[in-house]
């Protein structure tokens, strides 16, 4: 049975078409790209919901906050709380954080610059929907492209994330070590992606959809595919 998923196109989304391409052409899923206003009442029809990257509302006020306050997000929240898998990549992660579906905040990179480069992600847990096939310690090569991707949480929040195994990926070096040099944006504890308590809502700053075909990777890798395959696997389980 093929996955049937929706990608919500917000005003100012830019990675929506890439996400559709990776899931439709590479994974062979059934994918609908739907304008956010038209998406509000059709979310029930899908196995999973994707919030794409980009600059929704031009990143005005704060990245993701305006999109987080649209009507469609009220329904996304309801479904997420009922267990529907919801995934946010880059700006989609920012929207998930701003809407309260995921804890913490994403603030400006410590370099004060937008940064686009390939990084190593170390898988920290396989309990999230997007790493269900991953093995703790796996390294995925995936590119980042963001100016506000620095994950932050306070001491208590971090403790909860760690205690509950909600940290899904960390930025690591070639040898799987969590180092300052491997951290591209100053994220606390090198955090690149997290999930909610239940593991069905997952946010990630780097772009797996850009790393799912060997032709696009400087190393000929396709590690981003593991992200989507894990989602497939997770869906089969529920």
């Amino acid at each position: 049975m093929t996955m049937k998923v929706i990608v919500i196109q917000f005003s100012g989304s830019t990675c929506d078409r890439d996400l559709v391409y990776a899931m439709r052409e590479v994974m062979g899923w059934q994918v609908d790209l739907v304008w956010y206003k038209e998406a509000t009442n059709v979310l029930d029809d899908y196995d999973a919901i994707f919030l794409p990257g980009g600059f929704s509302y031009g990143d005005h006020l704060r990245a993701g906050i305006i999109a987080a306050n649209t009507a469609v997000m009220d329904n996304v929240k309801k479904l997420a709380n009922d267990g529907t898998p919801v995934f946010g990549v880059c700006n989609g992660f920012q929207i998930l954080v701003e809407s309260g579906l995921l804890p913490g905040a994403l603030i400006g990179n410590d370099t004060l610059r937008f940064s686009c480069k390939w990084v190593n992600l170390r898988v920290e847990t396989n309990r999230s929907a997007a790493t269900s096939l991953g093995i703790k310690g796996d390294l995925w090569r995936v590119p980042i492209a963001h100016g506000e991707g620095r994950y932050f949480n306070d001491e208590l929040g971090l403790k909860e994330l760690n205690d509950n195994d909600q940290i899904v990926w960390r930025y690591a070096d070639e040898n799987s070590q969590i180092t300052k040099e491997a951290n591209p944006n100053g994220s606390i504890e090198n955090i690149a992606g997290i999930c909610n308590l239940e593991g069905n809502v997952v946010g990630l700053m780097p772009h797996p959809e850009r790393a799912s075909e060997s032709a696009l990777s400087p190393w000929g890798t396709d590690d981003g595919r593991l992200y989507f395959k894990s989602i497939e696997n997770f869906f089969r389980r529920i």
Partner: protein
Amino acid sequence: MSQQEYILKDKINLTEEEKEAVYSVLKRDLTLSEAAMLEVMNSEHCSYKSSRPVLPKLPTEGPRVICGPGEDAGVVDIGDGLALVFKLESHNHPSALDPYNGSATGIGGIIRDILCMGARPIGLLDSFRLGKLSDPHTKWLLKWVTKGVGSYGNCVGIANAGGDIEFDPSFQINCLINVGCFGVMRKEELAHSRANTPGDKLILLGGSTGRDGIGGASFASKNITEESESDRGAVQIGDPYMKKLIIEATLEAIKKGLVEGLKDLGAAGVTCSISETADMGGTGTEINLENIRLRESDMAPWEILISESQERMFFVVKPENIEKIGAVFSKYELPYEILGEVTESGKCVVKYKGQTIVDLPAHLLTKPPAADRKASYPKYLSALNGKWLPKEPKINEFNDICRKIMSSDNMISRSWVYRQYDTEIGLHSVVKSGQGDAGVFRLSEFNSKRGVAVTFDGNSQQCYLDPYNGGAGILMESCSNIAAVGAEPIAFTDCLNFGNPEHPQVFWTFEKVVEGLGDAARALDVPCVGGNVSFYNHDEVNDIAVKPSPVIFAAGLLEDVSKAVNAKFKEADEFIILIGETKTEIGGSEYSTVIHQKDDGIVPKVDFARVKTLLTKVVYVIKSGLVTASHDISKGGLFAALTEMAILGDLGYQINTNRIVADTERLDILLFSESLGRFIFTAKEENIEEIISIFAEDEISASFIGRVTQEKKLVIENNDNQSIVNLSLDEVKHVWKNRMEEEMEGKK
């Protein structure tokens, strides 16, 4: 036209010839609005009045050409029912004053040029010409132009595909910021900037009209002076978020067949749109100025007509489609208004508060007279020796020379810049910024196995010392970069950045560069499909004109994009092959400028008779899968090209100079000459003979000069097997890779 404010003939800022062209047709006084429109359309930027008589030296036709110069962007057939649309443009003057907004709106403008041909823009390129990197003003400019290009391009979601930066003191005040964009579309979706049918409606979509950019085109046609700061209002402000929505709405409207004509609003704003669409369609246009949404309510009609506010598009739409196109615009929450309609009159008529304030034949606006510029041989050229050669360095000096070259302003890695650009979005980039001689984009989105290659190139040093050969050389260099990734060069556009054309010595260099470009284009069989000319890049305070700085945007085609190669060494023990002949040509080279601080010497010449065959063979061996890496030799010569390949692959090399085919035995020339038409390949041992024989068929030199090594050392030996260069790769790489970041951010 009663109760109008008319302007006296001698108050109008036009030359005598330009006035004659207007008054001989009109035979009456001009209104204030008419005068403003004519002034801006007669500006150098809009009218190409100085360059127009010279540009016919460039060939513009070829079997692939769908749209050549004259449209908003060049369009070429790339097979599989697809067309490539590409263009580059300068945003020099605005960027010199306000580098962030100047460069950002440069990107905004060039995106519109691609969009208004009907194509989805998929890639961006940029070229910066700045003063010395160590200079604080240069750093300020570099920081903000990079941010401007990046924040606009990233937000609108278009990938960077490459670029080119040169640092030279002649650009200290007048920096040159050129930006390029390309897009791909199905051929049948081509849109034209035309209003063909009387009765069709004229719609303005997008941003409101304000005072930003008032007279921007006129301002770009002046030298920069101490008063230029007060022109800051002439720099437009961009809104990439709205641009993203405009792109989606425009493409959706075209797909639905709702668009008869399309024009972007750039230089000269509404004036340009209503006159060029009418003139191209052989019709007229009539608009009501009060229908335009204003940002500032007290704007005078002439200001509204020439405002260059960003994020606006002009549509020609059939009356029966107005509702449908309105629904598309509304989906994206974009405001729009119907300005008026197409007429049969051949005139541009503007009404405002019940009065006709403009009533001009369209051709008076679109076809102003050319200027008759004088050219004379520049004094600085007479002062050059022309054949200058430095004393040959001692063998023990080579290591140091090599270190200096790889750490010079013009050689060091540009990653600090392009890491601030999204190079991945769109899932197209197969050879990415910094990986090879040209950016390669796949077209899988369009169900095609093909790919396009794009590159920006210039060499102001060589164009300064020898404008003709310099001009020819940069086109050769550009096409060589295209061939080096395995693509066939198919067309180019240019941006010609020069000083004040009213100075005969500057104009002479302009003529010679264009002549050189034209001869090289014919030899390489690549047509020019568009371009842009930027004059008045002259610092009046210090009386310095920029060095002649044409920038070329060349495009190439790969039939199978999976065959593209990059410049990275792949495996130890692979063979290194040098193609082409090394000549005593170090004029304008990194070696001359960095090591000898000398602006002199013989500039590389294009071998017109053989270049086409050479590049065809290069593409052939790559397509056949015989080479594992490929790099064109340019700045810094053979040494720099090899070293870049080593840095990318994190592997060393060992070569011997005895098999370098050259007209000299001088080691410095062998290593640092910038002779054109040379490539380095790496290949497996079993393919060496075949590669060499393919080139030998046409008597093109090809020789095995050494091997890739596991040991991370750069080793060059002479005829006596004595090592003249022996450097640690890591040491050279560290400086090359980090120097720009350290200059910009401070040492870590």
